[in-house]
């Protein structure tokens, strides 16, 4: 193909002094112009819209803003943060959420995907039904579940009273011991379907021969799951876990609408606390909430890097 030959020569000519033989020998290297074509749009978006807010946040954390006066306070915001009781409660709540809930999410998603792959009846309908909660906005999910958890006429308490377990009927969102758990359940309800879809896609992209071979060996689904699917899906599951982890570290909308961080700060998360300090604290000071955001950013980055190191296998699985 003459066009391809031209393209090759052109690529060779454009390459930074690399002979054509070399560019053909290492397809993982390419010329700068090509790289730029791929990367520049993303970098432009990042530079214009994400970099400035990110750096501005870190910058602001060293100041206190009072109306229009901006005064440099150095590390004072950070020092106050360390002794801020509400902040540490928020950290604890967010940590519980972030380490526990993703396991639930990913496990549920995987099991649902396997069920669909194994061929349950009405698979198409189930796929849509199980995915519907993902499509709902947080506002809707929050409202629905506030009604479900309602003390007087919510379905949970009604069901408990109907089966004679009326003594267990409680104010799910109003009790400091139960509120966080209730929110975790709601959030898991919303996201299970997404994990299912991703796992399903991943299972489908596994080579069919391996699973067929297991079938021939009379492996039950339990064994198949444990010895074949999970190991081969490891990168996907890890990605989902990290994604869920980050999502929970940032969680805001659901908590804000359902409990506003209450009762007695039982559901206060880092994001709701940042919002309160930035918008509800009767001051225009952005310095303190910026400090919280910066600290949290470092914490999450460190956590993600650590998780990656611990859990990721070293080679990229190629098959």
């Amino acid at each position, binding site marked *: 193909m003459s066009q391809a030959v031209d393209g090759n020569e052109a690529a060779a000519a454009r390459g930074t002094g690399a002979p054509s033989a070399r560019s053909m020998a290492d397809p993982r290297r390419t010329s700068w112009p090509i790289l730029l074509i791929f990367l520049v749009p993303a970098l432009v978006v990042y530079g214009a819209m994400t970099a400035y807010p990110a750096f501005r946040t870190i910058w602001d954390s060293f100041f206190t803003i*009072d*109306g*229009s006066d901006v005064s440099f306070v150095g590390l004072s915001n950070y020092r106050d943060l360390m002794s801020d009781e*509400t902040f540490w409660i928020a950290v604890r709540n967010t940590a519980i959420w972030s380490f526990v809930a993703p396991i639930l999410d990913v496990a549920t998603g995987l099991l649902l995907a396997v069920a669909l792959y194994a061929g349950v009846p009405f698979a198409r309908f189930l796929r849509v039904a199980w995915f519907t909660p993902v499509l709902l906005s947080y506002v809707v999910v929050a409202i629905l579940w*506030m009604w479900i*958890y*309602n*003390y*007087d006429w919510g379905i949970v308490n009604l069901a408990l009273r109907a089966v004679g377990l009326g003594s267990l009927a409680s*104010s799910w*969102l*109003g*009790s*400091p011991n139960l509120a966080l758990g209730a929110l975790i359940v709601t959030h898991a309800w919303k996201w299970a379907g997404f994990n299912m879809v991703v796992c399903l896609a991943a299972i489908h992209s596994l080579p069919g021969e391996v699973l067929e071979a297991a079938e021939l060996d009379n492996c039950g689904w339990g064994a198949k799951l444990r010895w074949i699917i999970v190991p081969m899906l490891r990168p996907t599951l890890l990605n989902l876990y990290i994604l869920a982890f980050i999502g929970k570290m940032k969680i805001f909308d659901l908590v804000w609408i359902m409990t506003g961080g*209450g*009762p*007695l*700060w039982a559901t206060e998360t880092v994001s709701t606390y940042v919002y*309160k300090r930035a*918008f*509800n*604290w*009767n*001051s*225009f000071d952005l310095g303190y909430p910026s400090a919280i955001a910066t600290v949290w950013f470092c914490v999450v980055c460190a956590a993600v890097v650590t998780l990656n190191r611990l859990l990721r296998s070293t080679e990229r699985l190629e098959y």
Partner: protein
Amino acid sequence: MGLRNFGRLAVLIAAVAGLAGTARAADATQITMWSNWPDEPAKKQWVADRVHEFEAADKQCAVKLNFIPKADIYTQAKSAVRTGQAPDIFYMEPDEPEFMTGGFLEPLDSYIDMAGVEDWAKPAWTLKGKLYGLPVEAYTVELYYNKDLVKQVGIDVPASFQMSQSGFADLVRKGAAAGITPIAEGVGDRPFPGGLVLFEALLRKLGSDDYAKLLNGQLSFKDPRVVEVMTWDKGLIDAGAYPKSFSTLKLGESHFYFYNTPGALTFPDPSWFTGRAFAAPESGGMPAKFPLGIMQFPAMDGGKCPECKTLAIGGSFVIYSKSKNKECAGALLKSMATVENGTKWMEQVSLQTGVKSDSSKIKSVHAAYFTELNERDKGAKFFFGTPLLYYRGKCAETYAQVMNNAFPAGLLSIAEAADKMDAACLKS
């Protein structure tokens, strides 16, 4: 590739849509105004009427009026003033003084007729001698009750309409025994209702001066008088005064709880109660023949000021200090602040106002309600401001979590609640 073309088309569509949305400048100066109350027809009508009258009278100014829910107004306003994009006039309540102190508001002294504003309404918006907001909405904190149910449980309301400390405790006990919720209240979506009974009692026990000290962080919650009142309140709580769904019941739902299903004996509420109660019953209003009564909050034993009552300013309008159309904005507010308009507010909205009004000229279908309300307010010594109009930052947050929610929900002991409040609010 189809995807690429589609992407290009989408960007084009979006760009055109963005350009098409750019407003064209009118010949008259256009000012933007953000008001609250999108879901309260009476207040919304009053504001819309004032704007129309103003536009008809002053051809130089056109007004773009938006009605936005309160939570969104605050989020938008707080973001907008920081970037210079705030509207010319917007809604604000006195519980956000940082706008005033931050220099984001324009003083109104040179624009409106100061004689048109009640003197007691001015301090809420006054800073360094200048008035920064037009106090349209004013309210007193009242204790509404169901005459029939109260009589049914065997309680006689005295002629002064103020029960004693033990009398009220008796009411709670009798209500709980009869299976009727004594006090309908819900803090699901508000930071103040749960504290009403306690803080009104504190006002009557401590008197205006010491109550002001308490709200300014100069008096500890461990003061023996405060502890006495809290003990009485805890007695009510433990006797089952509040609904079980107290923590999650929304304010609107608590209204319904009181005058519809399942019904309650009393309902402490600011007098903007009428905004919901006087709506049509299908929209959640009070049923036509509901036996509504108003009583005073109970007098405390050895209380310094049983006739004290809380009066506060609610929704007000302010002008953005960086507005480019201050003349028009000022003229609009000036046209609002007249006795005639104040009277219209009271008539149409059935609520007090910080604008001067002429009570003799009020013609309202709710005349009986007004008569009763005025009687309860006669001879009252008014204290200006609710706790949240004084508490700021961490103290306000602690009040919302502790005094408003956890303590009335029975989750904290008196000592714990007092400790937390002192830690957050006491200026040592």
